[in-house]
C-alpha cells in the first residue's frame, strides 16, 4: 500500500525548484508533449470529419438528391452528426490540449501520471465515436447538441473528470505570484462544463422534463456550452497568446476582472435567448434579454484589452501566424457579442429568430471565434512542444486565407440571408415557399464557404502531419546518434 505522503509527492506537479527557470519551462512543455499532441491530433481528425459531413449536408440544402440513395447520408442525420463532432470531437479535444498547456505554463507546474490523460483521451474519443455513429445509424435523441444517446454521457463525464483533475491540480500547486486572467477563465470553464453538461443531460435525456421546459433546458445547455465553456477557453487563449507573442502586456488589464465576473454572473441567465417569442413564459425571455444586454460589459472589456493591445503591435500581428488567427478570433468575438446583444432585443429578434441568422451566430461563436483562436494557439504551442519550427510558409498562408475567406463568406451569407428570411417571414403576403426559394443562393454560398474552409483545413492538417513526421525523424536520429549507430551532425 503506497504511503499517503509518497502518493501526494507523486501527484505534486511542481517542477524541481533546483532547476533554473529556463529548464523548468522546458520541463513543463516536455511533460505536456504527449497528451497535448494526442488531443490536438484527435481534435483535427474530428474537425476534418465534421467538415466532410457538414459539406455534404450543406450541398443537400440546395441539391436534395445529392447522395440520396442511403439513409445514413440524409440531412437529418448528417447535420446533428456534424454539430456533435464539432462540439465534442474538435471543440472539447482542443480545449483540453490548450487549457492544460496554458494552465501548466502559467502555474509553472508539470503534468505527471500521463497514463491518466492517455486513458481519458482514449475513453473520450471512444465516447464521441460511439455517439456520432449512433446518430448516423438513426439513434439520435433529436435534442440540439445532445443528440448522442444517453449512455454516452457517463462515458464522456468520467473521462472529463480525469482531464479536469489535472487543470485543478496545476492550479492548486501553482507557484506564488499574481494569478493571470487566463487562469481564472480556464479554471472556471473546467468547473462549469460538467455542471452544464450534467444538467442538460439530466433534464433532456435521463429524467426528461415535460413540454417547453425541455426546450428551455436544451436552450440553456446550448447557450452555456458556448458562453461558459468555449467562450472562456477561447478568451483564456487570446489573453495568453496576444501579449506573449507581441511581448507587450495587455492594455488596461485592470478591466479584465470586471469582464470575467460579468460573464460568470450573467451568462447562465441567457439560456432562453434563442426562444424569444417561443412558447416559454415571458418573464424567462425578459430575464434572458436583460442578461444578454448586460454582457455588453464583457464585450467592451475584452474589446479594449484585445484590440488596443493588437493595434499597438499591428505590424507584428500580421507577421505572426499565431496572431493572425488569434486576432481574427478576437474580432469575431467582439462582432458576435455585439450582434448577440442587439438580436436579444425583442424588436430585432422578431426578425432574426428561427432563421439562418441564428445559425450564423452559432458559426460565429464556435468557428470564427473559438476555432480560429485555437488554430492560433496550436501554431504557438506545437513548435514549443516538439522543439521544431513549422516547415512551410505556404501552407500557413493557404490555411489562413482559405479558412478566413470561407468564414467571412459563410457569416455574410447567413447574416444577410437570415435577415431577408426573417423580413419575408414577417410579411403575411409572402407565401412560405417563396421564403424557402430565396434561401437557395444562401445555401449555395454556404457550400462554397465550407469548401474554402475545407481547403484551409487540408493545408493545416498536412502541415501538422509534416511537423509530427519531422519531429519523429529528429527524435529517431537523436536516439541512433546516442547509441552510436549514426554519426554526430546528421541529426536534422
Amino acid at each position, binding site marked *: 500500500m503506497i504511503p499517503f505522503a509518497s502518493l501526494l509527492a507523486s501527484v505534486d506537479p511542481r517542477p524541481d525548484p533546483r532547476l533554473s*527557470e*529556463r529548464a523548468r*519551462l*522546458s520541463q513543463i512543455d516536455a511533460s505536456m508533449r504527449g497528451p497535448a499532441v494526442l488531443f490536438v491530433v484527435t481534435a483535427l481528425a474530428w474537425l476534418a470529419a465534421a467538415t466532410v459531413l457538414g459539406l455534404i449536408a450543406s450541398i443537400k440544402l440546395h441539391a436534395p438528391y445529392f447522395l440520396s440513395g442511403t439513409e445514413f447520408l440524409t440531412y437529418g442525420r448528417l447535420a446533428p452528426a456534424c454539430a456533435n463532432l464539432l462540439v465534442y470531437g474538435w471543440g472539447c479535444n482542443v480545449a483540453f490540449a490548450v487549457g492544460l498547456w496554458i494552465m501548466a505554463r*502559467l502555474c509553472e507546474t508539470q503534468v505527471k501520471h500521463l497514463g491518466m490523460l492517455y486513458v481519458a483521451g482514449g475513453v473520450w474519443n471512444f465516447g464521441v465515436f460511439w455517439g456520432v455513429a449512433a446518430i448516423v445509424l438513426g439513434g439520435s435523441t433529436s435534442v440540439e447538441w445532445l443528440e448522442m444517446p444517453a449512455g454516452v454521457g457517463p462515458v464522456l463525464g468520467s473521462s472529463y473528470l480525469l482531464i479536469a483533475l489535472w487543470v485543478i491540480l496545476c492550479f492548486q500547486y501553482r507557484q506564488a*505570484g*499574481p*494569478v*493571470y*486572467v*487566463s487562469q481564472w477563465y480556464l479554471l472556471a470553464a473546467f468547473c462549469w462544463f460538467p455542471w452544464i453538461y450534467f444538467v442538460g443531460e439530466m433534464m433532456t435525456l435521463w429524467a426528461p422534463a415535460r413540454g417547453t421546459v425541455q426546450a428551455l433546458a436544451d436552450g440553456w445547455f446550448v447557450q452555456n456550452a458556448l458562453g461558459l465553456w468555449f467562450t472562456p477557453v477561447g478568451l483564456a487563449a487570446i*489573453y*495568453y497568446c496576444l*501579449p*506573449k*507573442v*507581441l*511581448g*507587450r*502586456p*495587455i492594455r488596461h*488589464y*485592470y478591466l*479584465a*476582472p*470586471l469582464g470575467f*465576473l*460579468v460573464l460568470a*454572473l450573467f451568462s447562465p441567465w441567457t439560456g432562453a435567448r434563442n426562444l424569444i417569442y417561443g412558447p416559454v413564459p415571458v*418573464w424567462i425571455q*425578459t*430575464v434572458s434579454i*436583460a442578461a444578454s444586454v*448586460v454582457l455588453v460589459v464583457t464585450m467592451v472589456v475584452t474589446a479594449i484589452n484585445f484590440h488596443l493591445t493588437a493595434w499597438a*503591435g499591428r505590424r*507584428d500581428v500580421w*507577421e*505572426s*501566424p*499565431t*496572431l493572425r488567427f488569434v486576432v481574427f478570433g478576437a474580432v469575431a468575438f467582439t462582432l458576435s457579442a455585439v450582434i448577440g446583444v442587439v438580436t436579444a432585443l425583442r424588436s430585432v429578434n422578431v426578425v432574426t429568430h428561427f432563421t439562418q441568422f441564428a445559425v450564423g451566430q452559432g458559426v460565429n461563436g464556435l468557428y470564427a471565434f473559438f476555432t480560429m483562436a485555437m488554430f492560433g494557439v496550436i*501554431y*504557438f504551442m506545437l513548435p514549443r512542444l516538439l522543439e521544431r*519550427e*513549422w*516547415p*512551410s*510558409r505556404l501552407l*500557413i498562408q493557404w490555411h489562413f486565407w482559405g479558412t478566413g475567406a470561407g468564414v467571412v463568406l459563410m457569416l455574410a451569407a447567413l447574416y444577410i440571408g437570415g435577415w431577408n428570411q426573417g423580413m419575408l417571414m414577417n410579411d403575411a403576403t409572402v407565401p412560405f415557399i417563396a421564403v424557402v426559394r430565396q434561401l437557395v443562393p444562401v445555401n449555395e454560398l454556404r457550400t462554397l464557404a465550407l469548401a474554402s474552409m475545407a481547403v484551409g483545413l487540408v493545408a493545416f492538417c498536412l502541415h501538422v502531419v509534416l511537423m509530427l513526421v519531422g519531429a519523429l525523424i529528429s527524435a529517431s536520429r537523436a536516439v541512433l546518434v546516442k547509441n552510436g549507430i549514426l554519426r554526430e*551532425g*546528421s541529426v*536534422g
Partner: protein
Amino acid sequence: MDWDFHRWVILLPGALLFCSCVAGLWWAISAGRGPEAERGARAVFTAEEPEGVVQDRFPAPRSRASLRQGSSN
C-alpha cells in the same frame, strides 16, 4: 405576477449589483490598486519568453542552397 412586481424584484437588485461592482472597481483604482492589477498583466512573461521580445514569426523561406545542403547530409 405583473410587470411592476418583476421590475422591482429583478431589475432593481440587478441594477444595485451592477452599480456596486462599478463602485468597487472605482475604489480599487482610486485607492492605488491599479498598479497591482497591472503587475498581474506581466505574469504571462518568463525569463525564456520575456516582455519586449516578439515570440512568433513566419518560418523563414528556405533557399535552394540550404535545401541542397540538407539533402547532402
